[in-house]
């Protein structure tokens, strides 16, 4: 079933140096679109460079169709790569750029031409074939890079932040096109980015990495609504999740998250999981859109705290409210009270089932 498997994959650049990628395990199905997401230096680029064969592996294994590819050269791995800088060769025309990989495979001229034309059509650059890269815009170069990557009909597409050099508008439209091309070609794809909205909109599954470790693998909805670690909860979502330090206490047979300024009653489902943490400190996280500023009759929620709105940032579709909670800024997203004014007294309520708790040592979600 699994097409590409990473098994305890490890990378360190110097002997005894830091692990840039630490015991990474992942299995990818055929035709899946996987996104590696994480801050810079988290090891995501290193990982796809190891898959492509540009980087040596320090430990573990990479298997394609059940066969280890570590001993193989990049060209024999059946992968092709789109680089961050596109890596379009400036001295070759667009046609020559796309044809070069095929020339290396010593294909016949007619076949090369046929396949280049097909790839150019798929990426909509047939009009550019005689031009040199320096005469083209960033978006056009990007298309050439994609055409060059699909022309070799790879088993796996590797894309290293391919959209990061484009301007914001182009980035969004190219991302739709990449998804389109993927749907047409059905090639298994791994896409590296640090942009969460890019990741959410492209991925079948997202691999969230931090400091060389995989924090969570899941669909966009899973990583958002069911974050596995504190890092994932804080990295995914804008504005980010609000965190508070609380201690878990038991009163009247019920569990409470207690801080200096509030006592929050924990819903029943988490009772069992949180029981071992009684009298201990944990991190409590709430996404901004799951906090209400007034009690809503039709919504099941639990009272948290009375406070005052400090700032309002209208965004059109919603407003971001900033309140002071425990001496820290907490952000709330509201679509209902968009015209609320700073200084208004509010009572915060958390929607049932939306409070998340994280172990302070392992940073894992407690559930």
């Amino acid at each position, binding site marked *: 079933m699994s097409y590409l498997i990473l098994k305890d994959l490890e990378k360190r650049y110097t002997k005894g140096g830091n692990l840039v990628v630490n015991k990474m395990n992942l299995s990818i199905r055929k035709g899946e679109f996987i996104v590696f997401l994480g801050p810079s230096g988290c090891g995501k680029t290193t990982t796809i460079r190891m898959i492509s*064969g540009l980087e040596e592996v320090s430990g573990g294994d990479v298997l394609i169709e059940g066969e280890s590819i570590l001993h193989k050269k*990049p*060209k024999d791995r059946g992968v092709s*790569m789109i*680089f961050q800088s596109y*890596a379009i*060769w400036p*001295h070759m025309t667009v046609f020559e750029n796309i044809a070069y990989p095929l020339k290396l495979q010593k294909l016949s001229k007619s076949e090369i031409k046929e396949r280049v034309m097909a790839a150019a059509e798929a990426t909509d650059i047939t009009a550019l074939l005689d031009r040199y890269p*320096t005469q083209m815009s960033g978006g056009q170069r990007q298309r050439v890079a994609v055409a*060059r990557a699909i022309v070799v009909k790879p088993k796996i597409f590797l894309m290293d932040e391919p959209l990061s050099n484009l301007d914001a508008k182009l980035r969004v439209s190219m991302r739709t096109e990449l998804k389109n091309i993927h749907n047409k070609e059905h090639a298994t794809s791994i896409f590296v980015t640090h942009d969460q909205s890019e990741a959410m909109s492209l991925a079948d599954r997202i691999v969230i990495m931090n400091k060389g470790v995989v924090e969570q693998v899941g669909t966009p909805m899973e990583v958002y609504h069911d974050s596995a670690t504190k890092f994932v909860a804080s990295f995914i979502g804008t504005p980010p999740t609000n965190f508070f330090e609380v201690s878990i206490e038991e009163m009247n047979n019920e569990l409470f998250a207690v801080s200096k300024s509030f006592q929050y009653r924990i819903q029943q489902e988490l009772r069992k999981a949180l029981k071992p943490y009684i009298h201990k400190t944990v991190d409590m996280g709430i996404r901004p859109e799951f906090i209400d500023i007034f009690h809503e009759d039709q919504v099941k929620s639990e009272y948290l705290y009375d406070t005052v709105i400090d700032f309002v940032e209208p965004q059109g579709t919603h407003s971001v409210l900033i309140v002071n909670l425990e001496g820290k800024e907490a952000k709330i997203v509201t679509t209902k009270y968009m015209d609320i004014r700073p200084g208004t007294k509010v009572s915060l309520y958390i929607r049932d089932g939306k409070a998340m708790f994280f172990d302070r040592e392992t940073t894992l979600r407690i559930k």
Partner: protein
Amino acid sequence: MSKLKLANSNKTGLPNTDIFKKKQIDLKRVFSKKAIPYLLLLPAFIYYAIFWLAPVFAGVAEVFTDVNGQFTLTGNFKLMMHSDLFDKAVMNTALFAAVSVMIQYFIALLLAVLLSRKFRGAKLFMFIAMIPMAITPTAVAILWKTGLIKEGWINSLLMFLHIIKEPIVFLNAEGLAAVFLIILIDTWTVTPSVMIILLAGLQGMQRELKEAAYTFGANKWRIFVDITLPILKPSIITSIILRLIAAIQVWAIAVMVLGFNKVPFLVERIAFYVDAVPGVATSEKLAFTFSFTTTVIVFMVTIIYLKFAKRNTKIGGSS
């Protein structure tokens, strides 16, 4: 800058100013705006008119008048062609320029490819490699003369290494051997710097360009031939042309190491007629004609350079 200032003053101009005055301000603005760059370039224009164009024309005039001040189209060129060692000077200059540049770029490219990785002490290495080029040509000549004399350091070194038993008398070299001696000295001077330039090009090249070729199945040699070299080619060729222009003007090393008339070059002939046989009417004419000829040759190489540079910007060297 002043454009902005003038625009401002115009804006603040009172609305009730009469039309004529307003028009004048506009005229002034348009005029001065256009004139500014020319005014700034004026000193350079004047300078080049007096100290470049005038001498160039004077030089051309001299070349086409004979010793008695009569016009002659070819007289001075005939004089030059029949002057002593003219053939040799032309041959040697061509040989020197071609061979030295070829040897230097071949060695430099080889070294640059071998060293195109990061290594410890790279900075110090670059520093040392730049020294020969930084030495005043006169001093380079003396440096090598102290080596080439019979009791010089080259013989000392060769004896010490047991390569030779008897000291070699380098300075007796004649003909081709003498030219190659000068090529050798020039190679010592120039090659390390050329290597640094090529190395900078190799290291400065985007790594991903090579990696892309590698992932598509190109081996090291193919990457070098198909990717690295073609991408560097424009800058290599420009630097070769610039180097050629310098090589055509070789003379000081030849004269100082071996003396006048030993290895004739075009510019060496100029120096000879100015320095060794001054005051004679024909030698002055010869100096003029030789310098005119050299300039024309350099000028032609420059035109090639310009053509090439233009083509590069069209195709686009590096992205």
